[in-house]
């Protein structure tokens, strides 16, 4: 854990003059594998359900392959040193998500979601390409900190003026399209946190008063960040989107810790979170019922009302067992409402079993690990904080929703990254991938190339 030579020199930073492998070929092969696995899954669903490969399996594969190829070309030409795992993992998860949604569509003929999801995925990959192509250096984002935070707040406040859907005011409906602006706000908030914290590193870490054993920064530094955090969480509580609220809180705490290294803050943050969760859990009826469900998922069965969503979800996971029922052979559709979005993981669990579920979790873990690795390799604090923040968003989101549908923590509505139905979520996640690709490219690129970006290589002060 101790940094070599007593400094924070990145372990992966190549010594100058050594040629760094770009690994684009590896990425291409992995992308091919991801497309093949998705197409196989698609065909397997058709075989299990109708005894025939779906007629458009080839088209589906070609479409996914084309998306992969375009994304790969963008990376090859604009971010040649990027981490070769990020894009294939994202594409594989997205492809599997499409397979699972298509599989559930077969059980719900009146509610078709796969095509829409494919359109959103295409949009997401397009946005990925746009970001990779246009954003030449992640440090450019540093200048947009306050624009980001203003936009994030605006996006979060906007849905209050739209009617509530399923008890939560998090949707904007324009025409036939619905969009969840809060999803996109999390990237903007991560950018803001990273920019603000990196700009005020020393002030946060070393200035301020000392209360008991904890050193607090001055209010002038801490004030804005706490205010914005409180505001965002407050808005979310008003909108009853507690999953995202939890995510923001976790993101804030992790980034603050990484920036300052103050363990005491984590403790205080967790205490605050626990108190807040307890308060909301006992006061707010919507959340209260979720907590009750979590404590006893089978209460509704004993009451004679049949199994609730969480019980159905647990039944689905249990039915999967070690090896799963097989794609297309499960009955996770019994979960009913939100089977394709919040509860998509139950379908994966029932049909792919513990083995498949573990593979999924490990894919996420690998993705997050590559994000952290990019953070470790970078030299600039903004890039580090941004990489860690973006990777943490994915990690926390997976934990909150997977833990929720499996009875580990109270269930809060949230989309499983890449897998779940939901356009805004998919698009947002592709932007996260794009940013991580960009950041990892900066991390691995040899120094002379970095100076080619048009911006002079910065010498970090105060390190």
């Amino acid at each position, binding site marked *: *854990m*101790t*940094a070599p030579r007593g400094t*924070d020199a*990145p372990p992966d930073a190549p010594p100058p003059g050594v040629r760094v492998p770009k690994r684009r070929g590896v990425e291409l092969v992995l992308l091919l594998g991801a497309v093949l696995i998705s197409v196989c899954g698609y065909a397997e669903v058709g075989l299990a359900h109708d005894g025939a490969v779906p007629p458009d399996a080839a088209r589906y594969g070609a479409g996914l392959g084309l998306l992969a190829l375009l994304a790969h070309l963008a990376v090859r030409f604009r971010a040649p040193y990027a981490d070769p795992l990020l894009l294939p993992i994202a594409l594989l998860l997205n492809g599997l998500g499409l397979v699972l949604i298509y599989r559930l569509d077969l059980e719900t003929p009146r509610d078709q979601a796969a095509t829409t999801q494919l359109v959103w995925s295409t949009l997401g990959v397009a946005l990925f390409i746009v970001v990779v192509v246009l954003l030449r250096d992640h440090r450019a984002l540093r200048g947009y900190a306050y624009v980001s935070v203003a936009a994030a707040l605006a996006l979060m406040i906007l849905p209050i003026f739209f009617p509530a859907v399923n008890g939560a005011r998090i949707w904007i409906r324009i025409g036939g399209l619905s969009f969840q602006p809060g999803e996109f706000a999390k990237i903007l908030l991560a950018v803001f946190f990273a920019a603000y914290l990196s700009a005020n590193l020393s002030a946060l870490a070393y200035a301020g008063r000392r209360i008991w054993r904890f050193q607090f920064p001055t209010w002038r530094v801490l004030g804005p960040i706490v205010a914005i955090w409180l505001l965002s969480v407050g808005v979310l509580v008003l909108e009853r989107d507690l999953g995202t609220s939890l995510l923001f809180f976790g993101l804030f705490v*992790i980034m603050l*810790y*990484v*920036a*300052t*290294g103050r363990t005491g803050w984590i403790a205080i943050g967790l205490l605050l979170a626990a108190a807040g969760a307890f308060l909301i859990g006992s006061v707010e009826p919507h959340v209260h019922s979720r907590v009750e469900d979590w404590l006893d998922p*089978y209460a509704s*069965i004993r009451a004679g009302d*049949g*199994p609730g969503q969480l*019980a159905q979800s*647990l*039944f689905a*996971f*249990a*039915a*999967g*067992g*070690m090896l799963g*029922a*097989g794609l297309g052979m499960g*009955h996770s559709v*019994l979960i009913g409402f939100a089977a394709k979005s919040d509860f998509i993981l139950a379908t994966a*669990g029932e049909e792919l*079993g*513990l083995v498949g*579920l*573990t593979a999924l*979790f490990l894919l*996420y*873990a690998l993705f*997050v*690990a590559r994000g*952290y690795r990019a*953070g*470790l390799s970078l030299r600039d*604090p903004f890039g*580090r904080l941004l990489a*860690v923040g973006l*990777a*943490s968003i994915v*990690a*926390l989101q*997976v*934990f909150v929703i*997977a*833990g929720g549908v*499996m*009875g*580990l923590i109270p269930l809060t509505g949230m989309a499983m990254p890449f897998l779940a139905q939901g356009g805004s979520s998919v698009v947002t996640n592709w932007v996260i991938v794009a940013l991580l690709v960009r950041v990892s490219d900066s991390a691995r690129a040899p120094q002379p190339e970095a100076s080619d970006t048009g911006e002079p290589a910065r010498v970090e002060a105060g390190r």
Partner: protein
Amino acid sequence: MIRYIRRAAALCLLLLVALLVNAARVMLVEAGELDANPANRRTAIARWSEPRGDVVVDGKPVTGSRDSGQQLRWERTYRRGPLYAPVTGYASQTYGTTMIEHAEDPLLSGADPMLAPLPLWNDLTRGRSPGGDVVTTIRAPMQEAAYRGLDGKRGAVVALEPSSGRILTLVSSPSYEPGVLSGTGPDVKDAWTRLTTSPNQPMLNRALRQTYPPGSTFKIVTAAAALDAGVVRDVDAPTDTPDPFVLPGTRQVLPNAARGCEDASLAYALQWSCNTVMAGLGVDVGLEVMAETAERFGFDDTTLRVPSWVARSNFDHDMSPDQLALSSIGQFNTTATPLQMAMVAAAVANTGEIARPYLVDRTTTSGGTTVDRTPRRSHRQAMSPSTALQLQRLMVKAVEEGTGANAAIPGARVGGKTGTAQHGLGNTGTPYAWFIAWAQAEDSGRPAVAVAVVVEDAEASRTDISGGGSAAPIARDVMREALRLEAESRGAPGPRGGPAATASPPVPAVPRGAPGTRPSAAPAPAASRGAPAVPRGAPGGRERTRAED
């Protein structure tokens, strides 16, 4: 900062481990419990995901399955449901299963491991075998004759093959259409309410599960006890019984419906159904021997399964002499199921031995391979062979020139016993008409059929009700069909020895059902599951043609 990033990464790893451990808890440790939760529909979905196996009568399935397109996909259908309802029972997605549908459920639903091609095969593949078929011993023409005979009146008919114990007829009336209970939804609930609240109790299987006072038909048991115990040595010798007969220890006089019963012989008493003689003999035999004999006939047995469970027929073990006297003529607390009384007739017909009654001839896989076959088993030795032969003679006389004249069949030896059972508070209920009988073709070595008929007949006027009047004609029609079927099958083996010499059951076992179908009935493919039925019917068709030649 690097150190803090590493620690944050460690936190993420911790979250991953928590997720994996929790996943293992839900999916492995608690999985069995969750799978078995009654609110988990997966068990029901798997159970109804494939067509159920069929119940086969005379080579033709009387059940089927219908693709409902619902979550519980295949629903049960029945061909001539009310006729066979006492045999099949129902298989409902809402209310469970009864009768054969219940007793053979693992086989019919495909869960029986015997159906798998290899041991543990289904456990390995997580699959389910297609449901197997249950081939019954019921003969359709007899079943129809009995159902026609009861004509919607409350009652039941059971016919057995005395030598083997095969149940050839099992009719309960009024019946119901089991198909209306198959599915789910409000219609099924309504039908259930209608059937369970109907005063006629159509879902009651009167043949197996309803006990009636057997009345005078029980006199066969009393006579067997008297002969076996040596109380009567000569059936034609007069007994010392007064008429009117005062029940021992009371002042109550036992009435006789027949005349000439004073000091009448056992033969006369059975022929004309003298209450006084039989009550007196019962008292003479004594409680212990009477109860023992009744048990040997199958009374007080709670363990009989055919494979559906059978209600216990009762003969009290602790009675005063007057109660014993009444019990000996099938009154007081003596009750019997129609199956029990058919076993009484079968015991006489089969020289004292009762073969264990059974309804399922064999079970097969959906492809027709035999999974299991019910063997003939001896159930009880009810009386000595010589007693049985004497009773045969007396029962024949009761039909030839006695109370059972309505059951006579030209060209056959028929023995029978009528019964008219009082019941209700102070015997005010409408009496039950009973008739038990057996029949033997003149050219056959042994009786082909034993039958018991009970008619509750609430609607007829009281004077019309009697075993001879209401029940005997039904028994005659059923026995006539049985004799016809037996003659047909005896014709088939041809030169292989005389009928008396062959020990084979009257129905050849291999091409099931086909030789028994009416000559006009072509072996039609099964209504809903044609595949298994065709190979079963096809060789039978050839067999029959040869038999007719």
